[in-house]
């Protein structure tokens, strides 16, 4: 499968929630270097192609870019935008990190929630934000996701969720850990009344988010080439003293091992989601 070529990308972009300034080529047009095919691709071309390189590599997308790509025009209404983190444990350096993340992402927290139409089907939607502390889950993320599932249950709506996360946010200690239990309980209640939840795992979906709501959906889709796993690769390498197979902890790997339903390319996601929602909630 050609998609296997871009597993384990050495993606320098976006590490730590920052973007490298695009390079200007001779013609003066900004470009981005693809970590898979190593070519410089004009930004305009990437944008025209939903941030997918001609080689098939899916660049990371901001939460709101995803929402506007997936939902019907002007249909998104944001919910719970006022829920944000403070520094409950007084953790050293956390306040500054939050401020930096807000600037880098333009968001107040690492997830954006709301209602929207997808193919004219009403649903609740959340998209996590990799530019905000790599989508880590603290109290605010847990509270927003939980509130969204409760809202969806009360309004009998399906939930579509795009995950991207480095895991639990350690600067909030045990409070972060408890968000795994809290969100899971809300997903369960939503599920128990017969409502649909579709998760779309994007690069990377790891740690406490994998071990909670990312893996609890009725239908789990993933973008090609995304890192999907529980423990960090470096930790596993150190613990086992083994070098890891090339495809380890990728979308393709979890598909093969039976933990996701389908890999869907970005260009097909909207249609697939609309179709799935229609089959569960349509007339």
């Amino acid at each position, binding site marked *: 499968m050609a998609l296997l070529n871009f597993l384990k990308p050495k993606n320098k972009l976006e590490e730590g929630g920052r973007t490298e300034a695009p390079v200007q080529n001779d013609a003066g047009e900004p470009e981005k270097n693809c970590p898979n095919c190593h070519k410089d691709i004009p930004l305009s071309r990437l944008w025209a192609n939903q941030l997918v390189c001609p080689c098939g590599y899916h660049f990371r997308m901001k939460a709101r870019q995803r929402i506007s790509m997936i939902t019907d025009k002007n249909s998104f209404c944001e919910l*719970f935008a*006022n*829920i*944000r*983190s*403070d520094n*409950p*444990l007084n*953790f*050293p*350096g956390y306040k500054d990190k939050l401020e930096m993340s807000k600037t880098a992402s333009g968001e107040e927290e690492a997830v954006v929630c709301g209602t929207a139409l997808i193919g004219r089907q009403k649903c609740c939607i959340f998209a996590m934000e990799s530019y905000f502390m790599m989508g880590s889950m*603290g*109290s*605010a993320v*847990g*509270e927003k996701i939980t509130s969204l599932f409760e809202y969806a249950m009360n309004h009998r709506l399906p939930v579509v969720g795009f995950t991207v996360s480095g895991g*639990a946010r*350690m600067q*909030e*200690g*045990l*409070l*972060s*850990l*408890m*968000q*795994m*239990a*809290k969100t*899971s*309980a*809300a*997903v*369960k*209640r939503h*599920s*128990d009344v017969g409502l649909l939840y579709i998760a779309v795992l994007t690069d990377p979906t790891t740690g*406490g988010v*994998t*071990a*909670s709501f*990312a*893996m*609890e959906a009725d239908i789990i889709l993933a973008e090609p080439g995304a890192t999907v*796993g*529980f*423990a960090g690769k470096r*930790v*596993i390498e150190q*613990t*086992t003293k*083994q070098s*890891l*197979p090339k495809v*380890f*902890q990728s979308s393709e790997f*979890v598909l093969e*091992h*039976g*933990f996701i339903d389908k890999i869907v390319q970005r260009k097909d996601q909207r249609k697939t989601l609309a179709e799935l929602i229609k089959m569960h909630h349509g007339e």
Partner: protein
Amino acid sequence: MSGTPYDRVKLARDNKRPTGQDYIKNIFKNIIELHGDRRYSDDKAIIGVIARLDGTPVTVIAIEKGHTYKERVERNFGAPHPEGYRKALRLMKQAEKFGRPIICFVDTSGACCGIGAEERGQGQAIAENLMEMSTLCVPVISILIGEGGSGGALALAVADRVWMLQNAVYSVISPEGCASILWKDSAKADVAAESLKLTAEDAKSLGVIDRILSESDIGSKEYYDRIRTLLTDEITELSKDPDLLQARYDRFRKIGMRSN
């Protein structure tokens, strides 16, 4: 209670502390161990039994670290694989079917990090436990007896009551892991331990646990007798609660709630 938070971490890891098996042997009677997840294998890092607590049949799940090096290797140092969590869930669902209360003893540095664990869906196994435990319609009590390492501990601690020994620790990440990620220096683990608020007193003040158990006479007959009495009384109380599931939901729902 004394020492720095990092001293507590070291105490919590001490292999002379009573382990899951010690609690099972000394608190319960008519113990029958049940094995296997019915899907892949039997994980020795997690023990599941049916037994009597003061005459009442209960299901007990315990993470077992072992005492000697040989035991610890056999128990994978108390780091469960996905099949351990799936065995636990199977036995908890069985307890629910037969109306037996569930008691979990939690003691792990974390869920196993390894190739097999990832291949068999460690994340999915933990996630499923979190989801399913939230609606088990029998009383569930979890006691953190040593290390409460992140999701691997939480996967047996979505309970109506969560108790902690005074020298147990409960944390989202090991202090060493936290220090090496944040400060690229695992030697700063003591600073991380302080910052993570992982002691029993911290967990209680954060509303994460309900009770701290004294260790003054740890390992003695009186110690186990006292825990047996506490468990019996609490289960009697919980069994009377008509809104058990709502209370369990609310217990976790209110943690970390903040809007401004």
